């Protein structure tokens, strides 16, 4: 192969990764319009606006920007979460909307960084899958991740959940590259990326334990030998994470530049002592410990397409088998009975161990009966890229077994057909679920109707207002007041600003006195619906927003007397 050809061949996979990311972001942008702004998005719009004020000051008057009064003034907003992603929201709004006018809606400019990071997650899943399992398997992994219905929903949002999944994945990928002979540059990159991960969301606290456990197990006997000798050689990437990570975290969050200890303590305390919310699970609303231990697993089973889970289980099963073989051969080598496992076996063992560690760590908080379950699947969403990577391994085994001894073209055709067969259902489910992402349940539990019958949560965050915006715009008289229920006021205002809702409609805090009342269904919120019944004198909603026939949001109109 000529040098030029080798060069272009080397570009193919990064180009494919980029294409996947771009296509995913394009799909997210195309489906953005009718996805209402969720409750927390409203808070982050507000925070991003505040941070944007600081960036403007930084661009205009850098010295003033670093004065404590200005830092505190702009960065106090939403200081219970770190700043990286919200800074991206702010900069995206500043440049892509206000300055360059790339987006028609202000809200889209806030959402764009989350979409872009979701695209990065899809691309890196592909690249990692490509390196370990092959090109088609990498594509299967990427599509499987992108088309998990709840991933697709969260990828649209001006929130931290997909960004933290992306940053976790990217950091782990860099770590893996660094320990797979990638050299010191990957190790430094791991440290820097970990700093950004720390500055994205507190899930980041769980990654170092996962990597340390991985290091200990993957290193095997060598680690214990070194420990006994009193000099353990930790991977450079781990050292970089410990040294560079906190520096990047600190530099990227102006709020902690002053009173660092006190403010960090408040940040940690907010999340370790997070209040309990209500969550419906199997027909019962949980609001305090003990929480059901099966919650995370059952919800994964009910919301991730079954074919993805099947491939994951096949991949995981093969991995466990391989892992046991490697361990046995290590033991046999020590007893002088067999040769040590080869480097390829060891590498794959290490890689899969890393993936498994990331999955288990992401689910680990739900081993405790005290962990609040208010956020549903988004709280272990960091596991999903690794689940998809195992699925890619499962795909390889299936493709290999099915294509058998065929010639090259036949093999390729069969592999492509298999890839389509295992991704078509996730694509249909994810696209079909839009814009009702949180109500999406897979056929394994009977789809959305099955989920409702089982008593699984259909909605939170009041995002489904976007699905009834057309009704309100058409039906409400001029200047009508609308009780917004679970939609944050900031989210409502953003919808009005973006022209999704008529600007003359007046949001109201209470159903009493309002002409229209929204009701976002969660069992514990039913009492709000009852308040509307008594006030309006009717139990009949004027409009019901449904997903596959299941009511998710309904709207009451005050009868004219």
């Amino acid at each position: 192969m000529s040098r030029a050809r080798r060069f272009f061949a080397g570009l193919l996979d990064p180009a494919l990764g980029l294409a996947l990311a771009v296509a995913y972001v394009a799909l997210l942008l195309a489906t953005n319009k009718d996805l209402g702004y969720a409750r927390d998005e409203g808070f982050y719009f507000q925070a991003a606006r505040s941070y944007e004020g600081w960036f403007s000051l930084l661009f205009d008057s850098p010295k003033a920007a670093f004065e404590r009064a200005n830092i505190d003034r702009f960065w106090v907003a939403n200081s219970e979460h770190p700043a990286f992603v919200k800074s991206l929201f702010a900069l995206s709004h500043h440049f892509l909307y206000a300055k360059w006018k790339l987006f028609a809606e202000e809200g889209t400019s806030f959402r764009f960084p989350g979409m872009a990071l979701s695209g990065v997650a899809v691309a890196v899943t592909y690249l990692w899958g490509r390196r370990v399992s092959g090109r088609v398997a990498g594509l299967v992994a990427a599509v499987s991740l992108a088309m998990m219905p709840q991933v697709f929903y969260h990828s649209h949002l001006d929130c931290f959940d997909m960004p933290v999944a992306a940053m976790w994945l990217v950091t782990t990928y860099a770590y893996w590259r660094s320990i797979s002979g990638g050299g010191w540059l990957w190790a430094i990159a791991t440290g820097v990326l970990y700093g950004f991960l720390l500055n994205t969301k507190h899930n980041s606290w769980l990654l170092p334990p996962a990597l340390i456990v991985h290091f200990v197990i993957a290193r095997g006997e060598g680690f214990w030998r070194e420990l006994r000798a009193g000099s353990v050689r930790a991977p450079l990437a781990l050292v970089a994470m410990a040294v560079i990570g906190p520096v990047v975290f600190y530099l990227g969050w102006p709020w902690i530049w002053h009173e660092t200890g006190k403010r960090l303590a408040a940040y940690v305390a907010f999340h370790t002592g997070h209040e309990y919310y209500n969550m419906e699970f199997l027909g019962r609303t949980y609001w305090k410990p003990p929480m059901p231990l099966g919650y995370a697993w059952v919800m994964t089973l009910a919301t991730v397409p079954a074919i993805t889970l099947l491939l994951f289980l096949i991949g995981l099963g093969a991995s466990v088998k391989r892992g046991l073989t490697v361990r046995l051969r290590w033991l046999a080598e020590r007893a002088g009975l067999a040769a040590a496992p080869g480097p390829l076996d060891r590498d794959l063992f290490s890689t899969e161990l890393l993936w498994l560690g990331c999955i288990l760590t992401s689910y680990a908080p739900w081993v405790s009966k005290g962990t609040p379950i208010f956020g549903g699947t988004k709280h272990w969403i960091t596991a999903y890229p690794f689940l998809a990577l195992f699925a890619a391994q499962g795909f390889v085994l299936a493709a290999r077994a099915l294509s058998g001894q065929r010639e090259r073209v036949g093999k390729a055709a069969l592999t492509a057909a298999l890839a389509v067969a295992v991704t078509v259902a996730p694509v249909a489910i994810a696209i079909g679920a839009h814009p009702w992402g949180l109500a999406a349940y897979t056929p394994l539990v009977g789809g959305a109707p099955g989920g409702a019958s089982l008593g699984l949560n259909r909605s939170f965050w009041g995002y489904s207002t976007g699905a009834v915006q057309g009704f309100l715009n058409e039906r409400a008289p001029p200047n009508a007041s609308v009780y917004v229920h679970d939609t944050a006021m900031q989210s409502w205002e953003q919808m009005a600003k973006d022209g999704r809702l008529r600007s003359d409609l007046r949001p109201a805090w209470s159903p009493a006195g309002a002409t229209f009342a929204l009701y976002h269904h969660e069992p514990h919120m039913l009492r709000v619906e009852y308040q509307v019944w008594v006030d309006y004198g009717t139990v009949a909603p004027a409009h019901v927003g449904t997903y596959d026939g299941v009511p998710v949001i309904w709207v009451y109109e005050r009868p004219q007397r």
Partner: protein
Amino acid sequence: MSRRRLLWLAVPLAGVVELGAYFYFSRRAPRVDEWTRLREPVAALRQAGELVVVAPRWADPLARHALGDALMPLSDVARSDESRYVRAIEISAMGDRAPELVGWRTVGEQKHGRFTLRTLENPAPEPVSFDFVDHVKPDHATVFEGAAPCSWNANAPVTAGGLGGNPTFPAERFICPSGDWFFAGITVIDDHREYRPRRCIWAHPPPGGPLRIRFERVPLGKTLRGWGGMPWLLFRDSVGATPVEIEVRVGGTSVGKHVHHDEDGFAPFRFDTGRAGEVLDVEFEISAANVKDRHFCFQADTR
């Protein structure tokens, strides 16, 4: 093809089966327009006083949207239980059955589109002769805070506290001297069974003495049956709080006292009137040793 390879065929097959299952389940539940088309047949089937029940229960908002208040009035939707009804119409979608009608006898069944409409008969109905909730009005009731009368207002300011606040304080209510929270009027609270609705008389014991609600000329049955509770979302954690007592007097004689504990949820009580067939005054006296945050609400009837 080897058996092993055949087994691997299960992988693509699973993908295709999931796709088919997705399309099946996504079309399984009736849509809004199908519910709307149900209005006429249900109206034709339902006689006055019959209950309309929806299975599965999550489809209830669709039924209310389609059928309206005439076929699904608030008093039915927010009922305390089904014991008073002689007959019920069950709207069944996707083959589901209403658990509250288990044991009722099917006396009619019709298919309408993707629905089954069943007429069911209660094997042991307890018809109501007087529902106190329907009569919290000046032509039947008088209300006192201790000895001070609570005045009727047919156009009081309506307030509703949202998720963490008060249930709707209705426009029509007897307002007691101690302020906004102390009145007798009809509202709906959430109960301990996954926040189901209960239509009831708001009867927060006031600080100026027990709340006394007196109904005149009540046709009595053998029993006086009732339910009492507090909004579950607000009081689900208040174990051991001051109990609320509700004492019932018929013709000036006490027939029983029910003590409500928050953790019991919306709990039933039943007293023998000992005066079946007579028409007498009935008084409910609601009190608590400490009246702070005692958001008591009750439903009662004679049968």
